[in-house]
């Protein structure tokens, strides 16, 4: 998957914050209104709305208008970028340790 650096950065920034991770947790498996989400936190509703805006701009939350209420839904696809990043580190260490082995075994 091709992910632009900017898009990936937005995802990392979005989930670096514990409140935003908590919001995602509450959205796991079900849609919730902004009011419902805000009621789960001690922070003010505007503060939660601000977090939601950031999550939306990172593509992790999508919203649907239902009458006067706004329903939020988790969209996890952008997290693939994070997973790919971890796999990349894994490959990096595999390679580095192989080099260490070769280095030591050839320079005794």
């Amino acid at each position: 998957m091709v992910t632009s650096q900017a898009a990936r950065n937005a995802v990392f920034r979005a989930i670096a914050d514990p409140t935003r991770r908590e919001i995602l947790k509450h959205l796991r498996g079900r849609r919730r209104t902004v009011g419902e989400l805000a009621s789960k936190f001690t922070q003010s509703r505007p503060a939660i709305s601000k977090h939601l805006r950031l999550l939306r701009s990172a593509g992790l939350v999508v919203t649907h208008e239902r009458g006067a209420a706004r329903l939020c839904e988790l969209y996890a696809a952008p997290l693939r970028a994070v997973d790919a990043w971890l796999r990349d580190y894994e490959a990096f260490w595999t390679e580095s340790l192989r080099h260490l082995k070769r280095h030591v075994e050839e320079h005794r």
Partner: protein
Amino acid sequence: MTSAGTPSDTIVQEITVRAPAARVFEAFTNPDERVQWWSAPGRFRTTSVASDLRPGGRWVMRGTRADGEPFMIQGEYRVVEPPSVVEFTWLPDWQPDATESLIRVEFTEIDGGTRVRLTHSGLTTERSRTGHRGWPQILGYLQDYAERG
């Protein structure tokens, strides 16, 4: 190797080197040696390593990426117990909203060599909240998503 399909922010890698633990520990920690093996052709080339090998001592590694851009990774040693354990923090300069992760390397002598076990943890834990592990959970969402199809 990490087990497939287990979302985690920890990477564990193992390799066995045919040499005594003291020799492998030295190759891992001595900057003059590290600069020789810690490169990945096609990805990056390491040009210099500076290291103050003691608990609280700093280390810095500089190099050139495949695209020609310079990079720097630095950190601090947390545990230095030759020839068995070295633990250090890891802070790359290219990472967005830099998080400082932790690398622990254990050297265990086994028949005919040394088992090197590297654990890279806290890859996604923000610096100011060490210990808060939101990541495996986050990757859980991804797993749900992927399995849902």
